[in-house]
């Protein structure tokens, strides 16, 4: 079992419960807990500084860059809504990384589950659009996407459990396979011949498109993403299933020795993860694209990996982190135009943050300030 280097905040804070008075205990917990906030923020700061040097070396102004990210991502109502729209698939694909990470699996195939989910939704819609009312049709599409995504990641989880296949490699291979399957059908038998420019499935009729959250220009995927994040947080930290899952992640052998249904836990966690990414694919199809096509492969699954790591696999924390990256993503276009930088600029920033974040893992437990006063036992 691959062990992530990241400890969980709850266990770290709860290791030695001192019998001292309540207030000191609160302070101690705050100090130890703040380590998990301060170090990631430090990592983002250092990565940003490195990125600023990178821009300076290219003769571009980092100040301009920050201003454009603000303007394009958070500056006005339009850009904020654009940001929120983009953070919805990021939340869902980050959940696809975070839930398996809790049981010690590093799954990076969210992109594939998103594509397969979106494709399944589009396929299910084909016979439905002429017969079923939109609400029922959309419900069936939603279920199809979630099931397809769940099965997709379940393959990686099950192979890990039953055959010892490295789930990181297999889940990424499954992504390439999923994209190839979608392309095979979208450019073949399922291609909508009325659209000569871009191979895609038959577009959904207008009444089948998911609407916006009232009063905004943001589709319902954001609400579903936040809801799922909250629900999964409760599942993983407040239920017996979540407790069992944490044991599997913390000590695999102990979980086996305890007689926990390890295989079932791995399978369920993988399926929850895949369903989240599949649902992201559903919203991409039913709220944005209107059909399954190559635009589903937009890299949300990969940015989601970074979001999950930054959030330390905590479902609730994923939401604000996803909004931050949604904003950077939304500002990509304006940065490209105004600063004459290639679209991959955001990818460089993403890679830098990821690398520095992982370097920062080594800092945990090194600063005395985060340790409470020595507890006597």
């Amino acid at each position, binding site marked *: *079992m*691959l*062990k*992530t*280097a990241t400890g969980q905040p709850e266990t770290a804070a709860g290791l030695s419960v001192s019998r001292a008075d309540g207030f000191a205990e609160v302070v101690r917990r705050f100090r130890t807990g703040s380590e998990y906030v301060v170090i990631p923020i430090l990592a983002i700061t250092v990565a940003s500084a490195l990125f600023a040097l990178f821009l300076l070396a290219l003769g571009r102004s980092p100040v301009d860059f920050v201003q454009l990210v603000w303007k394009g991502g958070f500056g006005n109502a339009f850009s904020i809504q654009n940001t929120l729209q983009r953070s919805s698939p990021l939340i869902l694909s980050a959940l696809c990384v975070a839930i398996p990470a809790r049981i010690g699996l*590093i799954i*990076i195939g969210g992109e594939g589950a998103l594509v397969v989910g979106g494709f399944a939704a589009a396929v299910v819609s084909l016979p439905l659009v002429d017969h079923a009312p939109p609400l029922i049709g959309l419900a069936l599409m939603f279920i199809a996407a979630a099931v397809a995504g769940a099965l997709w990641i379940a393959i990686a989880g099950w*192979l890990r*459990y*039953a*055959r*010892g*296949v*490295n789930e*990181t*490699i*297999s889940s*990424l*291979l*499954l992504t*390439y*396979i999923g994209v*190839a*399957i979608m*392309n*095979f059908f979208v*450019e*073949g038998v399922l291609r909508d011949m009325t659209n000569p420019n871009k191979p895609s499935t038959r577009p959904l009729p207008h009444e089948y498109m998911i609407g916006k959250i009232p009063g905004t220009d943001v589709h319902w995927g954001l609400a579903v993403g936040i809801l799922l994040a909250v629900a999964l947080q409760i599942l993983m930290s407040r239920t017996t299933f979540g407790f069992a899952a944490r044991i599997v992640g913390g000590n695999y052998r102990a979980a086996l020795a305890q007689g926990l249904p390890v295989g079932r836990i791995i399978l369920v966690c993988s399926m929850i993860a895949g369903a989240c990414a599949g649902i992201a694919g559903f919203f991409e199809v039913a709220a944005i694209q209107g059909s399954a096509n190559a635009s589903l492969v937009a890299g949300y699954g*990969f940015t989601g*990996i*970074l979001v999950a*790591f930054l959030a330390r696999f905590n479902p609730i924390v994923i939401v604000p982190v996803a909004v931050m990256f949604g904003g950077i993503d939304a500002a990509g276009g304006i940065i490209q135009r105004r600063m004459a930088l*290639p*679209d*991959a*600029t955001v*990818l*460089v*920033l*993403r*890679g*830098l943050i*990821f*690398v520095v*974040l*992982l*370097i920062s*893992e*080594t800092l*945990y*437990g090194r600063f005395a300030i985060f340790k409470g006063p020595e507890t006597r036992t």
Partner: protein
Amino acid sequence: MNENLVIVLIAMLGGAIRVSTPFMFVALGECLTEKSGRINLGLEGTLVLGAMVAYAISYQTGLPWAGVLAAGCAGAMLGAMHGAICGLPKVNDVAVGIAMMMFGTGVAFFFGKPYIQPSAPRLPSIPFGAFADNPNLRSALDVNPLFFVGIAVALMMAWAFANTRVGLIVRTVGDSAAAAKAMGFSVDFVRFASTTVGGFLAGIGGAFLSLSYPGSWNQGLSSGQGLMAVALVIFARWSPVRCVLAALLFGAAGAIGPSLQSIGVTQGYYFYNAAPYILTLAIMIATSSATRQAKDMPGEFAAAK
């Protein structure tokens, strides 16, 4: 039909030679890294960056071999980064690999943008098929020198692992870090060096992609070949020579799609494109086991799993 079969088989032979070369270099690099007890999943990023750097340098200088060298150096830099970061305590090498994959491809796409259009001088091939009348056979036997370089590196690595002091040190570090430490070797330095040299080899694999076959630079150039090569090392059971054989097998699988296209079978083009990924997955399933560790697996690598 029979004639078509011959054409397909010849195309697959040529494909096996051409397509296998980048697999071979990445797999040899990863083999070295894993022998020292560490896994570098970032070689996909190294491959893409190597391809971009090789193409850019070849275009700027007009010297394709300078491009190959530069690609190796770029790969070595990424490898050194991975090696140095993983030397820090509490840092997970799998996660660092994912980050390096993103970082490498990001940097490659960023600097590679201006080189998508222009055409750079490519590496010349050696026409071994000059004797043949059959034009298909002739083009199949146009072999790039890097193919032979790869085989030579594999043989050298196999010999070095078995017969030299350096090879013994790498194997010791990979099999038991504690034993290596007791013998006075710096585990972190050996792994750092192995990852760096591994990155150099993977970078050269990238140079082959952009300068020989397919022989151009674009963002979809690699699409997972670096990752497949990592999986291939497990299949080759950490032996450089078996890495070459496995790479040839993968090359032939990767050539199925284009070979069938050459005789006019275009149906299922995307399915045949998926064939190498499916083959990789199938091989991983067949060679892994939940209960016993793979044969010949470096001890430290097994402990980390």
